[in-house]
């Protein structure tokens, strides 16, 4: 009888513990543990390498695979990453708009305005001095963590994103295929940003722009484009120097540096409306500096500058031709250029050659 009572007591004890465990799981928000099985081994992804681009540096802990890139692409355009399931990364980075949104300042869920213009993601894998306009993070994996949780962007909580993806049968399998995970609890934000980063690294220029074909010797520029090229890169002593190539150097058309290009007037270093890089480094001499954006596909990415203040490339050229606005740490090459209307048109013609045709 005593033995029987003890068995009963044990049974009741386990029942209480088991109920408690189930209750805890449901309260904590964790997905029940599910075993996963990768259906295939990840296939290494071959990154296109246009002429003159050099080798992209890939983090050793996130090698690119076909499955990883495809998963990243699916996530990039999936509103599952936003709090109200209305927006994705692709809502501010449209492929046909050079991976920008053509707005002066991007808008997050519920139309909430952000602070700066969305940057082009073409060739972003080559940007090795810091991402965003102010370079606040170094790697694409770290970058991808921020917009999801930013209240003026996707405004979601990463724990909820993980929960939703773990529940999703197709995503569960896709993560298992891409990263070899064998249970749902291994599907973490770390792998989400790795997949997004892999997709973003795959966004490499096609090498089909008129400029690329000109440099490859398979196409001749028009006379106006050629003079624009000479102006841009200071090729010929016969034409003026438009001082563009110093910051927008070939072939990425950016040096990835941070400069004050004179878009904000500032009497002192403390007077910049947007301090940009200075807010990150804490050095007031970096105030008003922003990352030099690539000019590849620039005709697709209006409006221009970190705050989208210029609607057209003509306005941008006028800005530089007039020497920018006065500020203490403006780049020395931002100074009156003396370009005529014809020369400005020729420079514009050259900028149009930087658009990928595929």
């Amino acid at each position, binding site marked *: 009888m005593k033995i029987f009572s003890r068995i009963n007591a044990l049974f009741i004890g386990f029942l209480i513990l088991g109920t408690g465990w189930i209750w805890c799981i449901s309260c904590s928000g964790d997905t029940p543990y599910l075993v996963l099985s990768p259906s295939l081994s990840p296939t290494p992804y071959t990154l296109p390498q246009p002429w003159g*681009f050099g080798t992209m540096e890939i983090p050793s802990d996130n090698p690119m695979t076909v499955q990883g890139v495809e998963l990243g692409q699916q996530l990039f355009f999936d509103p599952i990453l936003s709090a109200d399931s209305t927006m994705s990364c692709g809502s501010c980075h449209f492929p046909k708009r050079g991976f920008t949104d053509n707005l002066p300042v991007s808008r997050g869920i519920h139309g909430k305005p952000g602070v700066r213009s969305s940057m082009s993601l073409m060739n972003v894998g080559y940007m090795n001095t810091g991402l965003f306009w102010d370079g606040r993070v170094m790697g694409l994996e770290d970058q991808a963590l921020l917009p999801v949780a930013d209240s003026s962007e996707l405004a979601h909580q990463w724990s909820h994103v993980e929960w939703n993806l773990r529940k999703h049968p197709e995503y569960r399998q896709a993560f298992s295929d891409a990263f070899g995970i064998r249970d749902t609890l291994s599907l973490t934000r770390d792998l989400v940003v790795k997949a997004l980063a892999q997709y973003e690294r795959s966004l490499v220029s096609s090498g089909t722009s008129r400029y690329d074909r000109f440099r490859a010797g398979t196409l001749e520029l028009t006379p106006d484009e050629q003079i624009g090229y000479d102006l841009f890169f*200071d090729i010929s002593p016969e034409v003026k120097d438009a001082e563009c190539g*110093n910051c927008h*150097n070939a072939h990425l058309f950016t040096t990835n540096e941070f400069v004050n290009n004179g878009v904000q007037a500032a009497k002192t270093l403390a007077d910049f409306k947007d301090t940009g890089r200075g807010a990150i480094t804490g050095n007031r001499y970096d105030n008003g500096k922003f990352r030099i954006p690539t000019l590849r596909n620039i005709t697709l990415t209006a409006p221009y500058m970190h705050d989208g203040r210029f609607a057209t490339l003509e306005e941008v050229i006028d800005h530089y031709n007039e020497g920018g606005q006065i500020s203490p740490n403006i780049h*020395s*090459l931002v100074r009156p250029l003396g370009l005529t209307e014809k020369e400005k048109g020729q420079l514009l013609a050259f900028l149009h050659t930087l658009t990928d045709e595929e």
Partner: protein
Amino acid sequence: MKYLTLLLLASVLFIMGCEDKPDEQPVTSLDLTWTANYDGETFLTFKDYTYADGRKIQFNNLNFFVSDIALISADANNAQTELVEIDYVDLSFDETRTSEAEQGKTVSIQDLPLGEYSGIKIGFGVQADLNRSKPTDYGNGHPLTRNFWDGWSSYIFSMIEGAADMDNDGNIVTGGADTESFTYHSGTDEVYNEVTVSKAINLVDTNAPLQLKINVAELFRNSNIEFDTNGDGYLDIENFPGTHSASGEMTIAKTIMENFGRALTIE
């Protein structure tokens, strides 16, 4: 059998232990430290200095490449011991980084043979073979991943950028229609400048850093009357505020690169 194997192993180890080691030349290390000054004053960006003609001048960028730095042996054959093949020296420190400006940029060279040297050779710029390469040929962190000028098919050997009180009204204007900025960029093989400085250097077990000091004021020396309109022996910044055009202002670019040798003192 087991003991025989152990005996053989012990014998082999004993014999190997008795072999003479090859002669190893004694070596040491040496730090090369680059600093900049303006006529003796610590060089800081965005700080006002006085130019040769008495006007205010300030800088926001000073950087340059150095190639093929070598020690020259004091013996009769003057053999060269290479210290640095290529390096990028950026001495642009603002007032918030004064201690970095004072410490300068240091490169440490290891495994140098002890001995007496009579001087040091420094190439200012990027030597011709390396100047055929491009930033995309190198990985992150290499000195030659920056400052390439596609229009010249050359690295920009030196960048000296800033602004000066061109109109002599007591103020320096930066930006806009009346900007008083200047930009001296020098590049192409034509302006590469190799300098040899005589200095007794005795490398022993422990060595003090070799201090390589650049007086920025001396970079503007110019005795060409075309560019020294004031006749004071220095470049007329007001009328020649740039060297960015590859051919038209090459003379100034070349003179600036030559001036690196004049501006250098070694301690």
